[in-house]
Structures are given as C-alpha cells and as structure tokens.
C-alpha cells in the first residue's frame, strides 16, 4: 500500500511536468507558428474585413449583418442574441422541427417577406423563412435575392438590370461544380449597392 501511494504521488508529479512540457509546444508554439503562417494571408486570418469607399471597416464579408433599410437586401433571419445578428452570441434557435413556435415564426416571416417585396407568399424561398445555424450566415439563395431585386432597384432609383448585374457579380457557384450550394453573399452585395451612390 505504501509503495502504491508513493508510485501514485510520483506519477502525479510526472503528469504535472509532462502537461507543462506538452503545453509549451501544443499550447504556445503551435498556435503562434500558425499565426505566423497566417500573416501570409492577413486578410483571411484577420477576419476578411470589408471596407467602404472611405476606407472605414464596415463589417466582415463572412459575417452577416442586420439590415433594415429598404434600399438594401435583407439577410436570412437570425437567432444570434436577443435581437439577432449578435456576433458575440452566435447560435441557432434550437426550435424543434415540429414546434408550434417555429411554425408561427415561419408564417410571420413568409407574410412580412412577401409584403416587403410585393411578392406572392408562395414564392418566398426556405432560406428567407428559417434562422441559420450560426445566426451569422452571410449568404442568401439566388431566389431570395431575385425576390428582393425589384424593391431594392426602386428604393435606389436604378434599373432592375443594374441590380441583377450586382447579384450576378456577388453569386458564388459551387467549387468544381459540386462543392456546396449556389448562393449570394448578401454583405458584399449590399456593399456594392451602397457603392452605386458613391
């Protein structure tokens, strides 16, 4: 018993030293080395900042933003934080697929999206009705972008064709033809809409 206890105490001391040694390599050297490599592509490693014509940072191209102005495209609904789009509180609604609350939310979103864009409620695409996983999804479907195009064109006093061109320029196609979904980055799209007046 006495030797077993001594062995355990020695093992605890060995554990502490081993953890310290491994922490130096895995917890300091490794992340710092990756940080150094990240400096080769600072835009990505620093969070893909988006700057406006005046050079101010107005967001990140990868993080969706709240949009309430009628002259800008609306993003997907967001459940991040209390009012949505809180990048310090990312997350989903976690509502069950069959919950009454989710059903009500979907109905309300369908009605408001149809009304805001003067469209038939049946045409509102699924991504406009549902909150994303992160609550910060920067993308919308091409269908949702098209649904909003008329409204955005009118509010900005430009031709629908110019808005369509901006949508096309901000549409990402599946890489190699099969990786991922066709989608429109609503953050860069809205930046392009703002730049129309610059």
């Amino acid at each position: 018993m006495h030797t077993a206890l001594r062995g355990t105490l020695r093992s605890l001391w060995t554990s502490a030293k081993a953890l310290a040694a491994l922490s130096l390599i895995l917890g300091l050297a490794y992340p710092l080395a990756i940080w150094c490599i990240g400096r080769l592509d600072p835009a990505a490693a620093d969070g893909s900042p988006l700057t406006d014509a005046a050079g101010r940072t107005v967001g990140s191209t990868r993080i969706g933003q709240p949009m309430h102005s009628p002259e800008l495209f609306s993003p997907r609904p967001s459940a991040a934080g209390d009012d949505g789009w809180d990048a310090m509180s990312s997350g989903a609604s976690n509502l069950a697929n069959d919950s009454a609350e989710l059903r009500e939310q979907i109905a309300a979103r369908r009605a408001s999206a149809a009304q805001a864009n003067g469209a038939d409620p049946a045409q509102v695409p699924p991504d406009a009705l549902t909150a994303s996983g992160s609550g910060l999804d920067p993308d919308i479907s091409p269908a949702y972008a098209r649904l909003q195009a008329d409204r955005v064109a009118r509010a900005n006093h430009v031709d629908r064709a110019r808005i369509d061109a901006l949508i096309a320029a901000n549409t990402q196609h599946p890489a190699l033809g099969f990786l991922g979904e066709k989608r429109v980055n609503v953050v860069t799209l809205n930046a392009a809409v703002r730049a129309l007046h610059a």
Partner: protein
Amino acid sequence: MKDLLQIAAVLAVLAALHRPLGAYMARLLTSRRDTTVERLIYRAVRVAPRAGQPWRVYLRDVLTFSAVSIVALTLLQSIQGWLPLGRGAGPVHLDQAINTAVSFTTNTNWQSYSGETAVTQLTQMLGLAVQNFVSAAVGIAVVAAFIRGLAARRTGRSASGGAPPLGNFWVDLTRISLRLLLPIAAVGAVLLILGGAIQNFHGPQTITTLDGSQQTIPGGLVASQESIKVLGTNGGGYFNANSAHPFENPAEWTNLLQVALILLIPSALPRTFGIMVGDRRQGWSVLGAMAVLFLASLAATVWAETALTGDAKLAGASLEGRELRFGTVASAFFATATTLTSTGAVDSFHSSYSGLGGGVLMFNMLLGEIAPGGVGSGLYGMLVIAILSVFICGLMIGRTPEYLGKKIGPPEIRLVAGYVLVVPACVLLGTGASLLVPGVREAILNPGPHGLSEVLYAFTSASNNNGSAFAGLGADTPYLNLALAAAMALGRFVPIAFVLALAGRLAGQTPAPPTSGTLPTHRPLFAGVMVGCALIVTGLTYLPALALGPLAEGLS
C-alpha cells in the same frame, strides 16, 4: 447527385489515406526510436522511455495525467482574468469551470459556456486546445496498449513475475501528440486559414455596419484550435455556434475538410490494428463492420432530413439551424460523422432536425461510437464488441471462444460485460434521476417528447464523451454542470479501466494456434455478427428510453 458526389469525394480521400496513415501509426506505436525533442521531454519529465508498464501502472498514469489536467484546466479558468489576453474577463464560475475541465480532458467537449464571452484567448489556446491534443492522444494510447495486449506473443512471464508490459504511457502520449496529431493539425489549420478561418489576437471590434447599426465582431486563434478540434474528435467550438460559425468553418470545402479530419484517424486505426497483430485481414473485418454501420446511419439521416414531411417541412424549414453554404445534405453528413465518432462538433443544430433524423443521431451515440468512433476509443469499443461477438458465437456453436488466439473465458467476459454496462448505466440513471430534480424540467426548451429527448441527448452525449448538444436544454445550472461532469468522467475512465484490465489479462495468455474448430474473425460473416451484436446490445438497452423520446415524436 451533386450532394452524393460531395460525400463520395470525402470517402475517396479517406480510402486513399487509409493504408499509408494506418502503416505510419503502426510504425509510430512500435518504433524504438525517439526524436531529439522527445528525448529532451523524457529527460525533463524523468521517465525511462524503454521501461514497459504492466496494465495497472499504465492505467494509473492515464488517470493521474487526466486528474492533473482537470485540476490545471479548472485553475486556469479561475485565474484567466489576471493572465495575458484576459481583457477584463472574470473567472468562470466553479461548477462550470469543473464541467468544462472534465469535458475537455475526457475528449467530450460538452460546452455549457459560451465561447465568445466566457473564456479568454489564453484559456482557449493554453487550456482547451492543449486538452484537445492530449485527450485525443490518451484515447489512441489506450487502444495501442490494448492492441499490444492482444498481440503479445511471449510465452513466459516477465522478469518481475507480473503481467507482461503494455508499452509506456508517457512515450505513447508524447509521440502521438507530437508526431501524429501536431503535423496533421498544422496542415489542417493552414488550409482552414486559406478558406477564411481566422487566426489573430484581436479583441472584439465594434464597427458600424452598412445600414448604420452596430456590430461587435470577435477575434481569436481559431484556425489552430479548429483543426485539432476535428482531428482529435474533440468537438469543442471556439465560438458558441461551433462549426456553423463562418470564422470556424468558412466555406463548403472547409466543411468537407472538417468531416474528413473527423473520420481520418478513426478510420485508419483498424489498419494499424491489423498490422500490429500481424494479420491485416483482422483490420479489414473491423473496418467492414464500422463501414456498414456508418453508411446505414448516413443513409437514414440524409433520408430523414431530405424526404420526411412534417408541418415545418412543408413550410420549407429544412434549413432551420443550418447554414446556406453547406446545405441540407452536407449538414447531415457532418452530423452523422460527428455523432458516430465521439466528436460532437456541429455545423448545423441537431435540435432542429426532424424527429427521426435527430433520433438516428442519438442512436449513433448510443451505439457507443464505434463506427468508426472517437480517436482510439472507437477502435477499443469495437474490439470489445468483437470479443463479445466471439463469445456469443462460441456459445452458439459450442466451442471455446478465442479472439486472435487468446481464450475468452469467464474473467475476460466479466470485464467485457462491465465495459458494456457502464455507459448505459450513466445515461439511463442520469436521465431518470435528473428528471426528478427540481429545476431540470424548467431548463428544457421544447415541450413533450422533444423535451425528454433534450435531457436524454445531454446524458447520452456526456456519457459517451460526444459533446454535441440537443441545445434546447439550458445546461448551465450547478446541478446539470456537475451531474454531466460526473457522467463524462465515469463514461470515459471506467471503460478505459476495463479495457486496460482486459489487455493485461490477454497479454498474459499464450496464444493458441488456430485449429479447424477456430472461429475465423477476418471474414465478412464475422463483420456481420459484430454489426448485429452492436445493434442488439444497444437496442435492448435503450429502446424504452428512445420510445418515449424521439420515436414518440417521430410517430406523433
């Protein structure tokens, strides 16, 4: 079609890496050569790298190392505000700090804290990320010791008269961390940065958005932690939204990269096993059983999420809790991979899956995460199932059960039974007891059967060291933090104790040469028996609980 191509591409990459990685790990776990850095570490820590350890010593060192890790990580969270990169953060409150420390040390990565606000960047890199590495290394070390016990060919007793050694824990831990996990994690981290994952020391930056409102965007050393999070089947996200967060998982191809990293080591380990026991066909039958379960579960989840109709589904709700850049099928692929390994990372929120889809994901964890399972833990879980299958077949055909020439007698099968029963006991007793505790029922978000699923999922996830959440449950209460911490610790270390004890017994046996009456364990038929055995054990254990939760929900 496009969606199936994505899945096929990942599986093709894994198939191509299966042999080289399996062989590399076998060399790593049997080589007698140390690198310079490793020799320095052994000297500083004062261990004799060539000294073999019998199972009791190996187990003792696993437990003391994990205990020290838990204490150190709890301490780090308690003093994080005074350390560099603290940025005024307060200490994590004690019950949550203990929960998190146990969670990361047991390779579970259940998260009752919110990544953006509760822990500092130093806690993330020096505490959580380090445990991502070493808890994964512990899992692989244990399976290495188990395989050595199965493969031991010595005839006499060792010099001391005790059981033959199973290797040296400190050597396994160091080598696996530095020569297996670190290089692959580094490559993965660089790829993630190229995809758009962040790696910086910025504090939260508040900016004025395009429509004039304010938004605060966090920074952090995300890519380096993200890559070991998936490679080590850990799963604890840097941010609250885990792999759904655009800074963690920025693109469709990084999503598939993460799935590949999750499955990489667990799917290659059967090859390592085959090489180390000197019969590669044994590795194929284990891999075959894993593959059958994996593909069946993947098909069921994809079908449930794309084809099932419910009210919300009619409204187009298959995107609730999912990111547009991944889509429904790639999200279901990730969900299958994360629940069939012990990862628990999520790129979409399982609580919003259909009743049956969520039920399949829970069943994946209840299977014991053996197809292919967490790094190391999946393979030792499957090998325990193999031994159980040999025993059941032996009873049916009236022969003495043997696995790889080692007799499976009453003492061995008692250890197997112990292993099989620990986790169900934690899950069912934990869920049942918690429903009686005041406050737990109030922490449930969704009413009815889905609410029971939330609690059942939490204890399943904790006991199986998965860590994914049916996140409707508000789990940051003192009772749930500590109860789930206990479930995680018991669900990790008691099975490890049974596995190492079994390894010790098997190592002491002289292998019997195969005869015409030996049950061959390398054929597809035996892989089929393993699949059946895993399903029957799980089904018999959990069917009542599943019927009350996800099944009731799916049928109502």
